[in-house]
């Protein structure tokens, strides 16, 4: 079974719209899909802005994993196949088959471990393709997926130049060289110092000044050749650590998604370009494509509500495509529609 995650840099960047585009193409080819979400999808109004959201429609035979309370809330008739042990605020996650086509509300596992468990269950049910809709800017559960479609756009920042610079830095993280180290061995944070000795740190993440102090104390006066950070890490703290230290230093991170969760991709770019470092990752994540969305909710003070607004769509696509280069970029609101079937390797 292949699994594709749909994640975004912010709310309303077009994750679900991209997902719907995929579903539509696969349905047109009479291919069955399985669907879940790490958030809450398919509602008709955004839970924060109140603006309309796209509905998710599945056809007969599709599979969906959603919370118990969502089973009867769409117009699709669902037949429960299996109640999992995965719990959410809206009840246990249930795997169901669509008996009668219609809309669905999807609320699935909210953490990586649970998503991995769900994938095992879908594999046992002979599902061929699992689509995992994202939530907000949350990424970590998508580590479990075979591929990722990332969405960005004006909802992240209404300035096109900022969107494109951020997108380029983001995509670079997915194309870092692969470390030869075995990711399952060694502590979460360790240093390779002079004489190639390893020093393990008693902290699991480098995300605050407290953990930086521990890093500095552990390094002492040693020359640091490599820093391994398998879980969460903040690039600014690494930069602070490296200031005044002789390089070059190899920064080995767990995976691109943890890097993004830890810090702004632009800061990672700074770390790479300004601090004489070489960055590599232990676990690659296959970034298949990026979609851009010119829409953003604009806050209206006079009515104390949000209204839909758009940036220049062609300019947005042009700028991001030019900046990113390594993967295809699509405006999800305009044609040409990406050939998702080919992009996902289903020819």
């Amino acid at each position, binding site marked *: 079974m292949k699994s594709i995650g749909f994640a975004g840099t912010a709310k309303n960047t077009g994750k679900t719209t991209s997902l719907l585009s995929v579903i539509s193409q696969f349905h047109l080819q009479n291919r069955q899909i399985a669907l879940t979400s790490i958030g809450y999808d398919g509602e008709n109004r955004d*839970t924060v802005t109140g603006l309309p959201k796209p509905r998710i429609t599945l056809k007969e035979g599709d599979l969906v994993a959603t919370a118990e*309370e969502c089973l009867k809330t769409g117009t699709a008739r669902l037949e429960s196949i299996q109640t999992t042990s995965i719990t959410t605020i809206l009840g246990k996650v249930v795997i169901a088959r669509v008996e009668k086509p219609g809309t669905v509300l999807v609320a699935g596992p909210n953490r990586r471990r649970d998503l991995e468990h769900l994938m095992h269950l879908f594999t046992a049910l002979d599902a061929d393709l699992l689509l995992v809709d994202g939530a907000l800017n949350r990424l970590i559960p998508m580590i479990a997926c075979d591929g990722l479609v990332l969405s960005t756009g004006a909802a992240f920042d209404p300035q096109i130049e900022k969107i494109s610079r951020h997108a380029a830095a983001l995509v670079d993280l997915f194309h870092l060289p692969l470390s030869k180290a075995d990711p399952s061995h060694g502590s979460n944070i360790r240093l390779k110092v002079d004489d190639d000795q390893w020093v393990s740190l008693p902290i699991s993440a480098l995300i605050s000044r407290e953990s930086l102090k521990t890093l500095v104390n552990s390094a002492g006066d040693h020359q640091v050749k490599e820093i391994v950070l398998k879980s969460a890490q903040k690039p600014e703290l690494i930069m602070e650590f490296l200031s005044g230290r002789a390089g070059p230093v190899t920064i080995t991170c767990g995976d691109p998604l943890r890097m993004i969760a830890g810090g702004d991709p632009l800061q990672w770019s700074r770390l790479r370009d300004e601090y004489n470092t070489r960055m590599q990752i232990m676990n690659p994540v296959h970034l298949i494509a990026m979609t851009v969305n010119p829409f953003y909710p604009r806050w209206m003070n006079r009515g104390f509500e949000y209204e839909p607004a758009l940036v220049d769509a062609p300019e947005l696509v042009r700028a991001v495509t030019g900046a990113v280069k390594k993967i295809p970029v699509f405006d999800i609101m305009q044609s040409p529609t990406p050939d998702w079937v080919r992009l996902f390797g289903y020819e």
Partner: protein
Amino acid sequence: MKILLAPLDPVHDNAVKLICRKLTDAGYLAQSMPPGTSEEEVIERALREKPDVILISRTLGYKVAETLGHLVDLADAAGLRETTRLGVGGMALTREAGVELGFDATFVGDLNFNELVAFIEGKSINFAVIESDVKVQSKPDLTAGYSYQFHDPQILKYLDTITSQILEWTKNKTTDGIQRAVIRSEMIDRRVDLLHPSSSVEEKLVNQYLRFCDPEIQAFFTEKKLPAGVRWLSAEETARLPEMIAQVRTDGRSLRHQGSKPLFFVQYGTGCPVMDVMHIKTSEAWGADGVLHFDPSWGAQREGLIEGLLTHEHDGTIVTLANLQFIKQYMDPKTVWNVRGHRGLNTPEMQVLGHAAGADLFKINIPYGSTGGGTDPARLTVDGVYSLMLAAQYGIPFDIPGNDELSGVPPHKTFAGLLIMMALGLKLGARPIPKPLLCYSPYMQIYGEMDANSIDMNTAKLRVWREIVDTPIWPGEPVGFMTHTPERVQSSITTAAYASLAASLGVDALTMASSDEAYSKGPISAQARVDTLRAVREMMRFIGDAGYAPTPKAALIQEKIHTGITSVLKQVAERGDFVASIYEGDLGSTEDGLYPGRVGKGTVREEKS
């Protein structure tokens, strides 16, 4: 168990401090972080302390969602989610937002400590946990504990005279309304579908029913002709309802700050059963204990009722068995339901349908229904007595609205009418609930009775009842009538003020309007309903177990009303003809602004033996 609490707000940490204290008092190891804590600092502390649960406090807003989502991601990235559960609470949060954000629990609205503890202990949070705070396992009986003993022997004597006269006069009299009620009752027992009778016996019953109906009603059944403004509800309209209802959330909290009284009722009648259900579910979600079905006035002016799942484009939802059953199926089992039938030509049949659909309360008031309600006094007296007998037979209490004050009738006359209905119902074995109207009526305005304040008069109006009889009291419909303006804040506040006054005086229930109802320029909105319910909850919290302090004038007003009631009842008793008393204005005259009704005049006849 170890709990880490963190306000992600730059300034506010009151909720965190409060919860931390309560958890510590409950024996948990609770630690809190200061305001302005960053997501990274929370995760770092959690990695060090290894709590079982992290509770985050933050108001949800645009871009704040990303901050909360980032915290959840960071927790997952750092491996914390293997061992630690995440909960979030704050303004504007909903369960759905909590799911989107990736939390394991969301705490919506005011703190419910049981819910919090259930989450900490790893138990599934369901409304059974929350409802254990408010032990309402079955519908309350508003009449329970009341003896209906009269404390004023003079009033009791007059009432006995009046009610005996009424019962003697109505003996052997009947109307088409009563005949239809009898046939309808049989059709319900036999499960006859009026629209599609399936046998010759059923057809015969339907035809018998139609014989007592107006031509317009007959045309509906025989020619499928819909009255103006009425149409069938489509399958598509009704099919969307489960999905819409699923989006309504409740925390099960009552509007009461403490205790089990009063019950809070709202009135509905949008014209559309689907919209009515949404209004009811919204009202339930925001704490209403009961709802009242308001029917359209044109329906009361026709002999006979149409049937089916029907919607219409004016105020009031058509009373059909199908409509009532449709609405009922979506009601929370705890919601108390009143179906209005206090005026018009179909009063007995309305009780039959209400009972068949599962109504908990009826509404019957002969003096008001045959004046302000527009029905002929003779007709409604005969129909009303029969309806009271049905109420007694079904064991369903009936409420008696005192809205004739809105025409200008002084309270002592209205209350005299309510007392007559009470005594009549009691004599027939029914259980009455009088509804003094707390309002700024024309009488109050003209005579300046509420110029100084609104407390003295309304306190007097409620206290005089306690003085006269041991009875449940239910002010409405609604409280604060004629104090509302088109401005929603003002309307909500005035309703909340009246509600809190009534509650502080120990009433058993009260009815509230939505904040846009009194002067609505269009359909009543769910948002406006919520305004009022929320305002009432706040006012109930404010007044708590304290009360208002009327001036000494209240006692004088109370005495004046009591004396006035006695005088009116004496007049009616001595007149010896209740129907004539209504016509002659003893219970509200043309000078007061009240006119006898005309619908159904001349339709009472002697019953053939």
